[in-house]
């Protein structure tokens, strides 16, 4: 009954939408004024070769501020929802082979994460992607070495401090922009003449770093909040 109703509805919606949006496929897509500017002059203006990064952290850096605040809020919300008198799940991890192999692999994971963050403005990648890889390291620790491994070594407080300092770094980059360039989140210290080097893009570099730290710590906090097992009566 419901299926039939849905089928009728959705065939109707689909038909009407296709009909209404035919204009789009007929005319095709053309670059707007802003994107034309990004594509032709973006790298010279910002000093970042990766145009996506330059948009995310310079032209539309305010979006990224909002976005990292979204993650920050989600982390706070999840922690406030799940925090209880908790003990970590008593899992002892996988076999010794896996443990050794990941012992070898983890530094490489870490390096690749850091690389993605630091080279975010030069090559594919950026703060978010690198941060996610950093976050996975802590998840891998949990799976491979047992849940108490990471939990006992790195307290939630230190992760919180990392997360907050990432966010504050982002804001600091923006605020320094006010003093140096006159605008909040302005790209200060960019030097387009040395295009392609690591430190060229000024604040984009710092923001990338901040976001990376923040995302890594945040994801790790989320993960550990969710896997905590509730012990009744404590």
């Amino acid at each position, binding site marked *: 009954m419901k299926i039939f109703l849905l089928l009728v509805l*959705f065939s109707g919606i689909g038909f009407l939408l296709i009909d209404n949006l035919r204009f*789009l496929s007929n005319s095709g897509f053309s670059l707007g004024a802003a994107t034309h500017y990004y594509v032709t002059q973006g790298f010279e203006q910002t000093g970042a070769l990766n145009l*996506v990064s330059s948009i995310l952290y310079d032209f539309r850096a305010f979006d990224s501020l909002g976005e990292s605040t*979204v993650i920050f809020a*989600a982390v706070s919300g999840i922690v406030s929802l*799940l925090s209880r008198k908790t003990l970590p799940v008593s899992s002892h991890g996988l076999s010794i082979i896996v443990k050794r192999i990941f012992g070898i692999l983890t530094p490489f994971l870490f390096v690749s994460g850091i690389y993605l963050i630091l080279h975010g403005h030069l090559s594919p990648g950026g703060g978010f992607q690198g941060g996610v890889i950093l976050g996975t390291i802590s998840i891998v620790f949990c799976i491979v070495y047992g849940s108490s491994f990471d939990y006992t070594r790195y307290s939630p407080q230190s992760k919180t401090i990392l997360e907050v300092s990432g966010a504050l770094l982002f804001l600091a980059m923006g605020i320094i922009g006010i003093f140096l360039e006159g605008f909040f989140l302005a790209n200060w210290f960019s030097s387009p003449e040395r295009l392609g080097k690591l430190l060229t893009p000024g604040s984009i570099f710092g923001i990338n770093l901040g976001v990376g730290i923040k995302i890594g710590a945040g994801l790790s906090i989320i993960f550990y*909040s969710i896997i905590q097992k509730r012990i009744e009566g404590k």
Partner: protein
Amino acid sequence: MNQLFFLSLFLLGFIGMLLNRNLIKLIIGFEIMEASVLLWFISFTNQGGNPPIYLLDKPGMVLNDPLPQALALTAIVIAASNIALFLTLVIELSRYHKASDVDKIKGLRD
């Protein structure tokens, strides 16, 4: 033709969201919807150029529009944190209700 594919993906996700009464499957349906929109957005603005990364040794390349990619990235992160929050709520809900059938949880009705 392309549009038809993404539209049917979108509607499929929607149907999945509405027909499934399991909370987890419901959010999977939503994810499919979101993904279809993002895919459409990215693929539509792909004009057959290169990824929007400027290579110093090859000036004058045709680059794709970088803006949709940035927007999609942002939207993905937002959706991800939303879903993390949703799953947290489902975990909390499981303290009170063992079943995750939305129609059997009376509190979701009113």
